Every structure is written in structure tokens, then in C-alpha cells.
């Protein structure tokens, strides 16, 4: 069953201005419920824009993004936030952690909007910290973590709500090769967890992975056949 259906999607920046730029052109794409898709393309090809539209961070200029049959591009702000909190786990290129807070506090942030008890929150956070293999650093300030540890924290935060969709935007761009390979191992875990996963990357380490269901190439805002 298709989890994500994208139909005739366009994203145009600075519309009707001299600096108008079409980031995405007529994108049509389907991602199944437990599919792992790698979105490949060079910098500026439109991968990040596509992911941000899938996560309802921004609105398209034309077209639809249906998730479980619901057009999320039309959601008013309040419902878009609710949708993200419920269905999306997003791993950012630069991790987007809040420095000054501990790893534990960063990971629990997506849960604070839910009516969970303190004990339930602790259990959920500890569960994902163990999954991401970073439990031993739980009380440490994220500013003091290494790049690989920060990414494991970002992974834990993306998983803590148990979202059905995980989106990762250039997840290995700030990592060395060893940590990038560790992330690929985590990806396989996601696959085993039956999550719908879309990874946008230009890292060649992701080429020819046996557990990846689909490779999609994107160039100049268009999907290549």
C-alpha cells in the first residue's frame, strides 16, 4: 500500500519575481508503507525541497502530497504541526539539536506536547537512546558531543514519537566515513522496523545497498527516468 503519493508537484521560489526559481518540476512519486527509498542527486537538485514538502515544513506551488490519502499540503499550520509531530521523524543535515540542553532533554522534546506521564516519557526516551546506542551519554550537554554522537541523538529524537515516516536530509554530510557506515547500519534497522524511509543524499556510500527498495535520481528539480 502506498504511504506517500506525490502528484504533479511544483515548488517555485520567488514566484513572479526576477529571481524566480523552479526547485521542483512536475514530480510524481509513490513510496510504499515499509519502503526504503534513496533520493539521489547533486547539491541544488531539489532533494531537500522535496523532503521539506513531504514533512509539511513548507507548501508547494502546485500539486499534491498525499500521506495515507490525506493531502498534507493543504493542512493549516496547526494541523501541519500536529501531523509532523505524529507521523514524521526528520533527521536534519546539521542535526538541529538545541545546545544547552542535555541529550535526554533534546530527545524528549517531541513528546512534551503529548499527555504522557513523566515515567512514560522516560521509558520512551530511554528506549530510543538504547536503539541509537547513545544511552551512556544521556545526561551530557549536546554541545559537548562529537558529530557521530550528535547524529545518533538526532536519530533518537526522530524515532521517539514512533513515527510511520522517517525522512533524512543528507544525514552523512557532516560525518566521517566510519560514522557514515554506522548510519547505514541504522538505516537497515529502520527497514526492519517496517518504517517508510526516504533518504536524500549525494553520498556514494549509499549506492548499491542490498536492503534499499528503490533508488530515485533527481536532477534540476525533475525525477530522472
Amino acid at each position, binding site marked *: 500500500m502506498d504511504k506517500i503519493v506525490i502528484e504533479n508537484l511544483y515548488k517555485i521560489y520567488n*514566484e513572479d519575481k526576477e529571481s524566480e526559481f523552479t526547485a521542483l518540476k512536475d514530480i510524481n512519486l509513490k513510496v510504499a508503507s515499509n519502503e526504503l527509498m534513496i533520493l539521489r542527486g547533486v547539491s541544488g537538485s531539489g532533494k531537500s525541497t522535496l523532503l521539506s514538502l513531504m514533512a509539511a515544513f513548507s507548501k508547494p506551488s502546485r500539486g499534491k502530497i498525499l500521506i495515507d490519502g490525506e493531502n498534507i499540503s493543504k493542512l493549516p499550520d496547526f494541523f501541519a504541526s500536529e501531523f509532523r509531530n505524529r507521523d514524521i521523524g526528520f533527521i536534519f543535515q546539521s542535526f538541529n539539536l538545541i545546545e544547552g540542553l542535555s541529550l535526554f532533554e533534546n530527545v524528549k522534546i517531541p513528546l512534551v506536547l503529548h499527555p504522557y506521564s513523566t515515567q512514560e516519557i522516560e521509558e520512551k526516551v530511554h528506549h530510543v537512546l538504547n536503539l541509537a546506542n547513545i544511552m551512556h551519554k544521556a545526561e551530557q550537554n549536546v554541545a559537548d558531543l562529537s558529530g557521530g554522537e550528535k547524529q545518533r541523538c538526532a536519530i533518537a529524537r526522530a524515532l521517539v514519537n514512533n513515527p510511520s515516516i522517517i525522512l533524512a536530509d543528507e544525514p552523512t554530510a557532516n560525518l566521517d566515513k566510519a560514522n557514515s557506515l554506522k548510519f547505514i547500519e541504522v538505516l537497515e534497522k529502520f527497514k526492519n522496523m517496517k518504517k517508510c524511509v526516504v533518504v536524500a543524499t549525494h553520498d556514494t556510500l549509499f549506492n548499491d545497498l542490498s536492503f534499499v527498495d528503490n533508488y530515485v535520481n533527481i536532477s534540476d528539480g525533475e525525477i530522472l527516468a
Partner: protein
Amino acid sequence: MSIFLLDSLVVFLFVEVVLLLLMSVSMFVVLKILRYWDFEASTTFQYGLEKRNYLVNTIIIFTISVKIILFILFIKSLDDLSPLVPGAMCATGVIGVNIYGNILLVYKIFILFLLGAWMIVNKLDLMSKKFTYLRKKYYLFVVIFILLSIEFILEILYFSNISLETPVFCCSVIFVVENLPFGLEVIDIVKIFYLIFISIILSNYFKKSSMSFMLNVLFLFIAYYCVTYYFGTYIYEQPNHKCPFCMLQKDYHYIGYLIWSTLFIGVYCGISPYIVYSLIDVDKKSLLKYNTIFLTLFVLACSYFVCSFYIRNGVFL
């Protein structure tokens, strides 16, 4: 001297002009939205309208919020004008200086309630996934915009027709006959006041929003006369000082703000459920409990002055 040189009046009129300009700009977008809105469409034009909807909605919320606060500045401007108008000791004298004053005041109160109703419809619209009440909300805004334009004309007519030479009556009623509705005596009005209050409590208890609406409108009307001609005299402790405004001043510890705000907020919570239901068929009866709370506070505050006076002096005024 021109009254248009008065600081508070200049600020008041300047803000009114700015708000009217902001609303005029919003009107262009609102009319476009009303004409072309199609939520099911995924076209560039519709996405553009949705973006503009957020923008215009923010502007309207801001202007309406400021407009509500501006009512207080309007009253203050009237008070500040009183030293300039012969015979006027407070805003009461200034408001009665020409035929537009009282009309403007009643009109402003009516619009205040309408603005409050718009805020509720807007909140419900923003809480709906498909902008269910968007059209009705903006049709109501068009009506509000027209009413506010008329209000601005009334304001200009009122302020530009304030004579600084003709003496006016103010809030002392030694030499004039009390102007009570239906030829009633003050004591009858007070009895009706408490009777309507009890009826409102019962009506709210049984969640009869249409009944509450009617009773609250009537209560607002009766409460005005009661506060001015009965409770006010106990606040001022002078039987001939019958004024709705003086109690807003420092001499009376600004108690008027508590009295009038609890009355207005209470009545707003009482009439809104029926108005909202009539406009968009949504049940907001939960507001009725706030109607009960605020009106009870209002009645207690008013009654306190009568009881306190009687306990201290052993007689009524």
C-alpha cells in the same frame, strides 16, 4: 482652541485612520478570497490565496484586537475633553454635547460585541482542517468593515461638532429630570435588574442560549441605567451624582473598570453562543458559564457598595 489639538484625541484618531487603512488593504484580499477560494484545488493560484489568507487573517486579528482596546482610549479622550467643554465635568458631559455622542457610544458597544463574535468564528475556522468557516468569517468581516467605516464618519461628525462655547449638562441631576426608560422609577429598575440576573443564571444552568441572548441584551440595557442612577450614587456616596464615567477615575479607585469590564465581558459571553450558532451552526454553550461568572462578579461588585453604605450609615440613599 481646536479640540483636535488634544493629545489623546490626536492619538485616538491617528490609530483609527491606521486601522482603517489596514482593514482597507485586507478588504482587497478578502474580496479576492471570497470570489475565488476553492480549497479542493491544488493550483498555484489557490496555494497563493491560502498564503494570503494567513497574512490577511493576522492583520485582521491585530486590527480587531487594537480596535477593542481603542474603546478605552475613546473614553479617556472624552474625559480629557471635559475641561474644554463648558459645564462638562467628565465624559458624560462631553458625550452629550451633540446628537452624535450617544449614538456613537451605543454604536461602538454594538460593534465591540460584533468584533468579539468575529474572533470566535475566526478561532473556530483556524481550528478546522478545511477552513470550514472561512467564507462566513470573511462575509462577516465585510459587514464589520462597512460598519467601522460608518463609525469613523460618526466619529468625525461627533468630534468636529463639539462646541466649546455652549454649556452642557453633566452628571449631576439636581436640575434635570431623570431620564429612565419606560417612565419607570429607579427602584423598579433595580428590581428588574436582579430579576433578569437570576433569570440569566437559570437560563445558563439549563443551557438555553437563545434565552440567554435575549436576557443578556436586556440586562446590558437595564444594567446601564442601574449603575448610572442607582449603584453609582453609592459608589460616589452622593444621591445626585448619577454618572457612568466618573467611577473610572482615580478618585473612585478606578472601580468603574471592574464594573464595566465584568458587565461587558459577561454579556459578550452570554450573547456570543447564540450569535455564533446563528452564523455558523456551532454550539459554543461552554461560554455561558463565563457569562454566569462575570455577571455574578459584576452584580456582587455593584451590590457591595449599597451594602457597605447601609452597614456604615444605617440608611439607604
